[in-house]
């Protein structure tokens, strides 16, 4: 089992450090340290030297962990590519930069287009693992499900019980409409 600090051999002979992450249902995922470090939680564990033998995540199942790591790997590769393009004097690289941004944006859009339950799990995982980009992406998606809806429609979408009395609800609604719009 590969562990933190051991160098794998990349095709170009450069050392690439990989990390093993273990899901709550005991599945192991080997990823680049750089990708795993997009999670602040994991990065701190690595820095504290707790990564030997793999990092267990009791709160994240294999299915969700796979998706989170897919997000991190894609984004870390994009960051590497753009910094290469930035330092490259190749005009073609520089010209390709906005296109690559567009690629990333469409990746994100497709990535977050998932079932509601998966979306929630991704959101919770991104929060627990502190992956800011993914957290923002998931929150934006949930916000988009809220925009323009009525309170009742929102309650139905998210299965939330209305615990206001009719009088309380009416009072807030009036105040919202008369004072704050």
């Amino acid at each position: 089992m590969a562990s933190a600090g051991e160098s794998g051999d990349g095709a170009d002979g450069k050392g690439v450090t990989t990390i093993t992450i273990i899901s709550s249902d005991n599945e192991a995922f080997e990823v680049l340290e750089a990708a795993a470090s997009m999670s602040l939680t994991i990065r701190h564990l690595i820095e504290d030297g707790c990564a030997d033998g793999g990092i267990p995540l009791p709160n994240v199942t294999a299915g969700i962990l796979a998706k989170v790591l897919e997000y991190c790997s894609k984004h870390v590769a994009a960051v590497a590519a753009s910094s290469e393009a930035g330092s490259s004097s190749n005009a073609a690289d520089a010209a390709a930069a906005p296109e690559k941004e567009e690629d990333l944006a469409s990746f994100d859009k497709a990535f977050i287009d998932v079932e509601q339950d998966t979306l929630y799990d991704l959101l919770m995982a991104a929060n627990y693992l502190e992956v800011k980009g993914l957290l923002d992406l998931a929150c934006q998606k949930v916000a988009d499900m809220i925009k323009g809806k009525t309170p009742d429609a929102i309650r139905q979408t998210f299965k939330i019980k209305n615990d206001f009395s009719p009088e309380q609800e009416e009072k807030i609604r009036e105040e919202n409409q008369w004072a704050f719009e």
Partner: protein
Amino acid sequence: MTYFPEEVVEHIFSFLPSHSDRNTVSLVCKVWYQIERLSRRAVFVGNCYAVRPEHVVLRFPNVRALTVKGKPHFADFNLVPPDWGGYAGPWIEAAARGCVGLEELRMKRMVVSDESLELLARSFPRFKVLVLISCEGFSTDGLAAIASHCKLLRELDLQENDVEDRGPRWLSCFPDSCTSLVSLNFACIKGEVNSGSLERLVARSPNLRSLRLNRSVSVDTLSKILVRTPNLQDLGTGNLTDEFQIESYFRLTNALEKCKMLRSLSGFWDASPVCVPFIYPLCHQLTGLNLSYTPTLDASDLTKMISRCAKLQRLWVLDCISDKGLQVVASSCKDLQELRVFPSDFYVAGYSAVTETGLVAISSGCPKLSSLLYFCHQMTNDALITISKNCPNFIRFRLCILEPKKPDAMTNQPLDEGFGAIVRESKGLRRLSISGLLTDKVFMYIGKYAKHLEMLSIAFAGDSDKGMMHVMNGCKNLRKLEIRDSPFGDVALLGNVANYETMRSLWMSSCNVTLKGCQVLASKMPMLNVEIMNELDGSSEMEENHGDLSNLSKVEKLYVYRTTAGARDDAPNFVKIL
């Protein structure tokens, strides 16, 4: 969703920028109400009397940006008596007690005292943005307090305020450590400012993007300032008389050439035609131009400048531009979205500087036009119909024919059909001001077609209560209705009272509503403040009339608005709240 930690829910809410969505989520359940209210950063209060300031601060203690509006819009035409109200004091005091994290305050048509500005300056350590529009009641001493104590000040934006001048000291009150200014607008300040202080302030403000000077700033000073601000995006010049030094000329032209980011220009106080060519090198990059304070430039000077502004999107100008000038605008400014043509002070009977011809030309050359304010002395139905077809994207359409009840200049007919065409073609219309000779028919069209209308201004129009009823019944999204000198009475006032719950306010002056009608309204709709105002002589007259006739006496001014705060306790004695 209920198992999400609160900070996650709060983070989701941060992706809901609109007040309306935040209001909605606050109603979903008790937990969401709490999370939302503690995390709302921007609060908008459209009518300062609709809610108590203490309550706003209690509900939203972590607000960072507060916007409050006071007097009704017709105050701009001096229809609201002085001392009516709209005091900023209670708002600033409540915020000082309950939300010291306040960073931004925007106020419109409110009465702000120097004491309030002093309190503001001392109470909010992170205060960054002050925007005052059409306010009054303060002097340059209040500004001195802001300058002295708001160490993180980024924006001081004073638009169209009535400010008492107590000398130039205020500008020198910005300490040397103040280097954070991004926007400074003191165009409405009447007095002199110390040019040395101004130059030093600009020199230590590397982030300055918007600077609007007042009339007292000379070309010489402007030339020295502009050398320091190559990143300026918006400039309001000082005076542009032809009295300046030759070095200033060179400095100015050099500096202007370096202002590659400059997009918007205003000021031009007392502009001499000699100064205008300085601006030519900038014209090709301008998107906004405000020449409405410049009666000294004639149509020829104006068009020479504007014809070079191919990218112009927003133009404010005086009617001395004339129809011919507007034709030049139409052929040069294809991207024009907003046009305002203001009346010059002088009007020679029989001579109209701008007419329907100019507006038709604009509409045919500038199909993107979506916002219009046009003062003129005549209009025709044909022109309006043509305009409506050329520009079907109006969001704001305000036509102000200066003579009340003026008919179609060709046919002598009412202008019902013309305005009817506008509301029919521009399906997204949100704001409309009508003028000229108009019957109940125009209101029938408005009620039928203007489904998204939010604000309607009516003057000297209509024949009967039916007119107003068409609007009240048809315009479901109406928020503000303001009417003057029109024959609408109690029947119209009481015709659809449920509407007043969904509208922010109704203003009626010199109409036919009576005291009795207002009393009935007040008793049917207890959530409304029904304010009646009669001229000072009139109020004592009303007290004295004890007979039945008193109830039938006409109410001079009526202002109705929904409120959660009950009757206000700061009303002057000429305002009676029923």
